[in-house]
């Protein structure tokens, strides 16, 4: 008689076996894990890096770290959570190391971005959030934020994660996440005010 495992249990068992094999020295067992979770890690990295070469560098670093630190994975939480913590922290390190002079003038907006803003000012309902120009503009605004503000805005506002989840992902305490969220929203409003000033004054 064959036993039927629930889907998630079967997945966990397989994952646990793979991890155990890697820890015993069979590095090849790591490949199915890379194959399974790379799409999620890529999606996370693409939130913070624009160029595809940078995205690949981030993902590669995440996997190298995961392999080196696999011994610290205790199996209490799913492997995916452990990996995503590593991915978010690597992305944050990337933002910090690539933080250039962020004070760019918004006068260099593309025509489509300017048009979208014009529409937003004159007839807000016609400025669709699905427009490419809106996506480019939000990317531009996010790039103006400090690394921690960008991380918080992305996790809290764009990905709709709870404060507790963010605390687990980043390793920050819950009150610190709340403080950083308050500051990040204020920082974003400041950037948008500068955008309005550069555009219309």
């Amino acid at each position, binding site marked *: 008689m064959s036993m039927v495992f629930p889907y998630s249990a079967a997945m966990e068992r397989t994952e646990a076996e793979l991890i155990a094999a890697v820890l015993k020295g069979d590095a090849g067992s790591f490949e199915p894990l890379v194959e399974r979770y790379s799409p999620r890690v890529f999606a996370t990295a693409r939130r913070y890096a624009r160029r595809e070469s940078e995205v690949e560098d981030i993902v590669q670093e995440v996997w190298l770290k995961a392999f080196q630190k696999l011994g610290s994975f205790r199996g209490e939480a799913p492997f995916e959570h452990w990996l995503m913590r590593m991915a978010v922290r690597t992305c944050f390190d990337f933002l910090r190391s690539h933080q250039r002079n962020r004070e760019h003038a918004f006068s260099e907006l593309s025509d489509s971005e300017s048009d979208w803003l014009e529409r937003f000012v004159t007839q807000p309902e016609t400025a669709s959030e699905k427009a490419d120009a809106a996506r480019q*503009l939000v990317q531009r605004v996010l790039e103006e934020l400090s690394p921690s503000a960008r991380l918080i805005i992305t996790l809290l506002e764009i990905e709709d994660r709870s404060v507790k989840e963010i605390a687990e992902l980043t390793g920050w305490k819950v009150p610190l996440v709340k403080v950083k969220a308050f500051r990040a929203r204020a920082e974003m409003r400041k950037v948008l005010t500068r955008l309005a000033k550069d555009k219309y004054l």
Partner: protein
Amino acid sequence: MNVVDLQKKLIAAAKAAPPGVGVPYAFEHRIMAHLRSAPAIDNWGTWAVGLWRASVPCVALMVGLSIWSAVTPDNAPTASATSTNGDISQQIERTVLAAAEQDQAADSTW
């Protein structure tokens, strides 16, 4: 321009365009090749390198102290210094041996 509305609109725009989940062709093979080519961590080697590096400041400190003690003109103790040092050493000795002396005194009373 209403900044709060613009913020909401832009956040909605970012939500409406989730990032792609595409993975470059044979990416996992690339990662595995990278992992296999990476040298294994040698704990003893790391420890030896650490010790070797620590030896440099230790030798420097030893040389410095040697020079300092050689250059210091005269270390012969003066009469007052001897009495002070003697006092301190006696005080330390008394403090350290106080418990033993107390025990001896207690035994002798029995």
